[in-house]
């Protein structure tokens, strides 16, 4: 066997031949039994060397510690990854919340519509318009004009609380510094205001023509009972007036005067005026003795 053949066998079994050489060498193996025998021997020897090296490397790998370190465990753990994701999301969310709040700006070129919370108070002034027609003024009371203090800033108003009052801020009412909200105002419920003392009083209260819906459009309910006595007795409560007297002898007249101070009721009977007060007990009507009041009542009754 030549040296060239030995090199060929070596290159054949170590995978260093190209396709053409492999094909040529296989033809030689078929035609030369001694070459084939030597090739088989060399094949086993090289295979043995490969297995020896493989066993050596496997022993090296077996000696390695494949248990993850604490850092690797944290990096590979699904739970840790999830927790890390939650933490990162929380940090980002917090950052956006605070940074976004600081950078919030309001476009002052358009009117700002603000939903006022129901139970928070607002500084306001009721403009009742004393020079306006009292009849029209009644309608305006249902839709009061609210003026926002210009010191208020938009960011102070909570965004999602329930509301009963709608406030419109015009651009002219805001100063340059007031484009940012500052939550400092208090707004009592407009609908919850019932006492007159909360409103600015005016001379309107004195006008008998003032007929607000809650005093002028609910005439008193009168019920009578005949008796032989000329002394009239009455009961008056819950808007109901009960009269007892000899009304076959002479008819009675009722004068009802509504004003800001409330409802005043008088009864005219047999040339006398009587004042009706609230009572749930059957009582004799008190006679009006004040001549000034009698004059006014007379004037009202004759000019009705």
């Amino acid at each position, binding site marked *: 066997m030549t040296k060239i053949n030995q090199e060929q066998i070596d290159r054949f079994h170590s995978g260093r031949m190209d396709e053409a050489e492999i094909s040529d060498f296989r033809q030689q193996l078929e035609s030369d039994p001694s070459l084939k*025998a030597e090739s088989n*021997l060399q094949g*086993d*020897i090289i*295979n043995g*060397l490969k*297995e020896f*090296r493989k066993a050596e490397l496997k022993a090296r790998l077996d000696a*390695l510690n494949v248990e993850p370190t604490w850092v690797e465990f944290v990096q590979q753990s699904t739970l840790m990854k999830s927790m890390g994701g939650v933490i990162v999301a929380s940090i980002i969310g917090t950052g956006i919340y605070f940074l976004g709040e600081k950078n919030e700006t309001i476009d002052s070129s358009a009117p700002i519509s603000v939903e006022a919370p129901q139970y928070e108070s607002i500084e306001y002034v009721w403009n009742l318009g004393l020079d306006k027609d009292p009849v029209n003024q009644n309608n305006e009371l249902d839709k009061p004009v609210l003026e926002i203090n210009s010191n208020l800033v938009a960011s102070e108003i909570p965004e999602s609380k329930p509301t009963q009052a709608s406030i419109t801020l015009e651009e002219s009412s805001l100063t340059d510094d007031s484009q940012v909200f500052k939550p400092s105002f208090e707004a009592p419920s407009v609908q919850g205001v019932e006492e007159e003392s909360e409103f600015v009083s005016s001379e309107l209260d004195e006008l008998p023509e003032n007929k607000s819906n809650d005093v002028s459009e609910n005439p008193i309910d009168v019920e009578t009972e005949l008796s032989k006595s000329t002394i009239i007795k009455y009961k008056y409560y819950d808007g109901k007036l009960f009269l007892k007297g000899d009304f076959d002898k002479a008819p009675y007249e009722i004068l009802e005067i509504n004003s800001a101070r409330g409802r005043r009721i008088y009864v005219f009977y047999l040339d006398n005026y009587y004042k009706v007060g609230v009572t749930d007990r059957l009582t004799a009507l008190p006679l009006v003795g004040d001549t000034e009041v009698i004059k006014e009542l007379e004037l009202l009754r004759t000019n009705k």
Partner: protein
Amino acid sequence: MKDSEILAGISRGDERMLDHLYKKYYRMMTKIVLSNNGTEDEAKDVYQEALLAFWQKAASGKLVLTSKISTYLYSICLNQWRKELDRKSRLSSEEVDGEEYQTHDAKERLKIVTDCIGQLGDVCKKVLTYYYFDGLGMPDIAKKMNFANTDTAKTKKYKCKKKLDSLIKSKYTTEDFFD
């Protein structure tokens, strides 16, 4: 460490790259076997075989990697385990008697060769295994073994191989290697 750095290290025969890859992907690769009715030992064996196959190809410069190393290793592991499952299913039938006999004969021959390799010195073992298993060229072997030059590596390899051949041939007759 990047894949390109790992491949460069393997081509130089740097075995620390093997250690790094083994530890890095151990859980990922063994999970393939463990989640498909394999044992821990089987999973480790499949992964080691796959990693060494990758090492052989990469060190010899025959590997053209078009994906990540982990993807390549994963596909090898998957194929290895499928083959092993096929082999197991074939072992359950009676048609493998002849094959078992052949495997036994090959094992016997392998044992003879392995014993002779064990009688070689460490330098010869390394030179021969670096050349035949790792597929390293003579320049790389010379560098790795701190030889003076490539010619020294070539001479060393020739002498070591001749010694191994003579050991094997002196212990056993040629007929032992033929059926």
